[in-house]
């Protein structure tokens, strides 16, 4: 996984509440066998009209947001299904960081699995960042976001932070506990043999 340290760029505002995973990537694009190439379908239902042409008023169809690498969202961002296609589509479009007041749990986890930082800040702060304009700088080691000369601090769990900053392989990390896993399985075999 690509490490995440600092990121400077364009933040696109999509401040509605309850942006669900069906909206982020509709089901017709879930038939893929790979993780890449989904960026063109990101937000397809609201980004394109029935003929497949871009809707000019949708934020990611407007300059400078076509090249956005940060997305500003509303509360309960990413609610709905477990589809990791949602962060894959964001990443493939070029988004490395989402800034929103709150997230649905599964989407939040899926972001970390893909080197995307889902950053939590109060709605007023997200709105202030949107109003301040670009560029926006996210500094994960320092836990700050700077926009329009104003710096906002954010909180993040230390474990999550390390995973992103170091770009760690989670599976490798868990396999380092192999002895503990095997010991657990032996105990489980004795205590709950029906499992």
């Amino acid at each position, binding site marked *: 996984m690509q490490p995440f340290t600092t990121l400077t760029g364009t933040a696109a505002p999509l401040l*509605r509440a309850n942006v669900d995973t069906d909206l982020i990537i509709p*089901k017709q694009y879930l038939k893929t066998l790979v993780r890449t190439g989904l960026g063109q379908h990101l937000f397809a239902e609201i980004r394109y009209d029935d003929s497949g042409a871009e809707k000019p008023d949708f934020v990611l169809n407007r300059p400078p947001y076509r090249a956005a690498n940060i997305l500003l969202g509303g509360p309960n961002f990413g609610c709905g299904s477990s589809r990791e296609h949602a962060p894959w589509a964001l990443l493939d479009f070029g988004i490395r960081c989402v800034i929103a007041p709150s997230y649905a749990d599964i989407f939040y986890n899926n972001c970390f699995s893909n080197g995307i930082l889902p950053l939590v800040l109060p709605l007023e702060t997200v709105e202030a960042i949107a109003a301040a304009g670009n560029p926006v700088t996210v500094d994960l080691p320092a836990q700050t976001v700077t926009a329009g000369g104003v710096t906002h601090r954010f909180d993040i769990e230390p*474990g999550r932070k390390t995973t992103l900053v170091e770009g760690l392989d989670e599976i490798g990390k868990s396999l380092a506990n192999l002895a503990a896993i095997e010991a657990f399985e032996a105990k489980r075999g004795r205590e709950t043999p029906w499992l």
Partner: protein
Amino acid sequence: MSPRTLYDKIWEAHLVATREDGTSLLYIDRHLVHEVTSPQAFEGLRLAQRPLRKPAAILSVADHNVPTSNREAGIADETSRLQVEALEENVKAFAVPYIPLLDDRQGIVHVIGPEQGFTLPGSTVVCGDSHTSTHGAFGALAFGIGTSEVEHVMATETLPQRRSKNMRVHFEGKLPEGLGAKDLALRLIGQIGTAGGTGHVIEFTGSAVKALSMEARMTLCNMSIEAGARSGLVAPDETTFAYLKGRPMAPTGTQWEQALAYWRALPSDVDAHFDKEVVIQVDGLAPQVTWGTSPEAVLDVTGRVPDPEQTGSPADKEAMLRALEYMGLVAGTPLEEVPVDVVFIGSCTNGRIEDLRAAAAVAKGRKVAVGVRALVVPGSGLVKRQAEAEGLDRIFLDAGFEWRQPGCSMCLGMNDDRLEPGQRSASTSNRNFEGRQGRGGRTHLVSPQMAAAAAVTGHFTDVRRLLGA
């Protein structure tokens, strides 16, 4: 030891290690796999040259993409076919147990797990699908995961997890005639909102929950995710044990006795602490219908489409205006006057035998209204067979419903079962998001009884009137 909740007990019994960063490594007993969220996980194993640790812990099936008619002829849609073929190749390569497409046991992953006795109390169950919460009906800690986590479980049989908070939802009283667990779920989501359970595991308690059948408990737990909670739980009891006994993958003989003793110790201790509590009286509850594009936008069927002018903040007003526009609804319209084009009865929420019985009881001797298309899609081949043995298929067919083959179908329309733009559905599924059942489709979530009532009257109808309740 201080009093513990059911969730605390399952959590502690599955703790493998606490890692340096403070997260816990949780052991995963059961893993359900389907065709949509697994290809990249199998691919990841191959690329990293990692073995799949425990194939026997997995049960796999294709459900999201599969056609629900004339399946014997194969899958016409090429990308769907390729995805199902990829699953078939992967399960063969990694020696994973698989239920083939034409097998009687094939069906929606959350219907077949319980049906086969794969889901057991006190176990941990995961699946690359958010409605894994369904399995919590058995007192199993069951939650949806992303594809990277699917790969993680395949490689390690564990997941790094952070402990959730405990939330108790207490349904008190007796569910009125004509209502079901779907109404309880929708009522709860209407009250606490789609983020109300975020960060929590919900345990459902109370006399109304105690009285529910296993299938109804599954409906309730299924929609925990729509309330923001990754898992819902019901404490195992005699109803649970009676359901499990004799299922193909349930324990037998002395192991059954051993398991029973273990399961009986699982319910939350009397004084266990919950971080959040909600109490809902169910006695006067009316059938629920959603009107918007989020499951929390729900009302009694006797209500009217809400008025954006009378709502709170400007943001709420804007969201409501957008929802009403998308749904093609006018503020103030009585819900019972809203006509439907399509009725969908099925999904992992309401595609089990009791759901079909409840819908058939309303459809019996009636006809689907002119201009309405109504589909019944059993949750599994075994549900379908059971329904046919009881003659439910005849009731539906005589009334003018389509009787189809099992799968996810119009719950999300990855196969050919989809709403056309502008079409309005009464659906027993779980999500009414924009475009969920087809681009431009307008979904109203209801119970199976209410869906059948809409089918035979052509508009939303208080099913209690049809039942003479």
